[in-house]
């Protein structure tokens, strides 16, 4: 059984919560007591239907306001795949939450209301998913029941979206007509839309091929923790623990430790109490080296002929998440892989309008939920790859040193 993480974008009005509720219900991930609670709440609110959205709006304030204010994670499984849903709020003031949910997603699911077609919000969601390099995108045209299951209306929205998507980086786009409320094309193919010959949403989610989305070319191993038992039994053991961020490491490989550039060879790779012949993402292993080189947390093990950039100058797209704006000359902390360093904002090249892709070169600052191209200078070198090549070694977070809060997310430019 494998795993698919997907992020849903869209607003309550688009029927997002209803769709998730429907997926959970029809894949039997909802239990009787959960459904009973939702039915009781629906009845007490005087609804004449079961509001499946209540299954997913977890916090009291959300239930009261009927909106989703934070990323919520949901789980369901079918016989072939386990799914983790990052359910993200659709409103512009929660862009940061959508960026958060999309950061780990293999697939993005954007909902639109068939009656209204593409809105500024659906475009923004597609832009964010593209920026975060979510490899697969599904546009679900919802509420088809309200447009008489019209093939023409569906094709119109599909054309409009495809035209917009040409400006983005979306390697794989699928468009599916659904009705979350009635269940059309959610789990099973709908008899109401014989003109649609694609698969149902769940069938697509179960079968979309995600194994090739990882970077298996560039061997990258950020050292997280040095294991030194210093016990009688393991007196001389010295292992470098971490999670493989890219490529494949094998025992016997020639490697280089960065940023020092010291060459070494892999003596063995340990997975708990066993040795393994090779390690690849996202395995958490412990690498032992033959040479007695100085390696510590924050270093990165790579191959001599394929190394990340070792640099103090970072050029990245930054999604800003704090109500205090980002401005040039500001000092921040950068956490990149296992390395945390001080950084200075050198310049803001432009602010990106996430609705139109317009670049505002005059922007003097980035406000909350805004995205822009930023240049940073770090106090120590970082070991960077472009985000387009590796979503682990190309990503970083920005932390405000005074408050300790995460204030931004960065994606290294090519």
């Amino acid at each position, binding site marked *: 059984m494998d*795993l698919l993480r997907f992020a849903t974008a869209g607003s309550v009005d688009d029927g997002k919560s209803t769709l998730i509720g429907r997926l959970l219900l029809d894949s039997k991930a909802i239990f*009787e007591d959960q459904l009973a609670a939702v039915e009781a709440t629906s009845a007490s609110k005087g609804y004449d239907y079961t509001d499946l959205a209540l299954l997913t709006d977890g*916090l009291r304030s959300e239930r009261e306001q009927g909106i989703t204010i934070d990323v919520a994670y949901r*789980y369901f499984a079918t016989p072939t795949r386990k799914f983790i849903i990052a359910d993200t709020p659709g409103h512009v003031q929660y862009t940061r939450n959508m960026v*958060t949910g999309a*950061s780990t997603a293999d697939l993005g699911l954007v909902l639109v209301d068939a009656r209204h077609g593409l809105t500024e919000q659906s475009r923004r969601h597609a832009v964010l998913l593209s920026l975060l390099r979510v490899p697969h995108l599904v546009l679900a045209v919802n509420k088809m029941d309200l447009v008489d299951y019209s093939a023409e209306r569906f094709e119109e929205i599909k054309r409009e979206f495809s035209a917009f998507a040409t400006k983005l980086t979306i390697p794989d786009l699928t468009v599916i007509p659904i009705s979350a409320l009635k269940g059309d094309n959610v789990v099973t193919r709908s008899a109401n839309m014989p003109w649609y010959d694609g698969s149902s949403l769940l069938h697509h989610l179960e079968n979309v091929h995600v*194994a090739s989305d990882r970077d298996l070319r560039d061997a990258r191993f950020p050292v997280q923790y040095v294991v030194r038992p210093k*016990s009688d039994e393991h007196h001389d053991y010295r292992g470098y623990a971490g999670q493989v961020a890219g490529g494949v490491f094998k025992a016997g490989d020639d490697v280089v430790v960065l940023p020092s550039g010291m060459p070494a060879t892999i003596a063995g790779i340990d997975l708990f109490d066993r040795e393994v012949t090779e390690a690849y993402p996202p395995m958490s292993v412990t690498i032992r080296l033959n040479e007695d080189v100085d390696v510590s947390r924050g270093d990165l093990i790579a191959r001599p002929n394929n190394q990340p950039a070792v640099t103090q100058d970072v050029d990245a797209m930054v999604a800003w998440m704090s109500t205090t704006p980002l401005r040039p000359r500001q000092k921040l902390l950068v956490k990149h892989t296992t390395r945390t360093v001080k950084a200075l904002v050198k310049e803001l090249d432009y602010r990106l309008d996430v609705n139109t892709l317009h670049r505002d070169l005059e922007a003097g600052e980035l406000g909350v939920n805004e995205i822009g191209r930023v240049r940073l200078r770090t106090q120590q070198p970082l070991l960077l790859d472009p985000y387009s090549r590796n979503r682990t070694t190309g990503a970083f977070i920005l932390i405000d040193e005074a408050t300790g809060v995460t204030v931004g997310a960065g994606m290294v430019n090519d």
Partner: protein
Amino acid sequence: MSVTHPDYRLSQLDQLEAESIHIFREVAAEFEKPVLMFSGGKDSIVMLRLAEKAFYPAKVPFPVLQVDTGYDFPEVLACRDEWVARLGLRLIVASVEEAIATGVVVDDGRTTRNRMQIGTLLNAIETEGFTAAFGGGRRDEEKARAKERVYSHRDEFGQWDPKNQRPELWSLFNGRIHEGEHMRIFPLSNWTELDIWHYLDREQISIPSIYFSHQRRVFERDGMLLSESEHNPLRAGEVAEERTVRFRTVGDLTLTGCVESTAATTAEIIDEIAVARVTERGATRGDDRFSEAAMEDRKKEGYF
């Protein structure tokens, strides 16, 4: 576990394991004084197993903390002691009884021991100066937990503010805290109940015997089967009788219900769970039933 796949894929269980091990190592590297909150239940045992794997062949570099309600199942305490001994860990027991005696928490006769764990726990964290506390919480357990972060920031009062959570991106965890604050860490965030059981089945590690089918004298209350015990006096009309049961969660025995079951192995339990139609908490945890927002309220106060 077979790790060499022709196309370099990992099963979802291996992915969850790798992710959790990454979290343990990250916390050990970044926090001065971590501690693992250990209830003796299956989730905290899975946590211990993952911690063991994360640092092997070195010892787990932090102690374990258990909040003893005074109403814990003896089988659970026995299992706890077995694990602590095997891994050579330091065990800190924070006792609710003691907290009541010293006035840390107030026993008004109406508050459950489970609820009194909050003050007891926060007091222990503060007294020992822990800066990070691993908990076995899973996002699939309950609606309010669905929004929980892996690193859950708690203020100097130990409280959780669901509207003011730090964004958590990729697998880049922000462990910065101020004096007096601490971080709750949930390495099992993305595991489901079924994942936990599959993992226990795969690892073949010891868990408390009450998870498996056994004979027990039980009585019915509020639609739950509760253990007959001196801490749980029978009320009018309640009758205790011997039944074949197992527990799906372990906690305060006055509140934790069991289910009738003949499942005697992890594999048999998995078969039962796969067709279960009621969530584990909803069915067997009286403490989550008090209100629609019971868990959310307890989390805000500083519960696990």
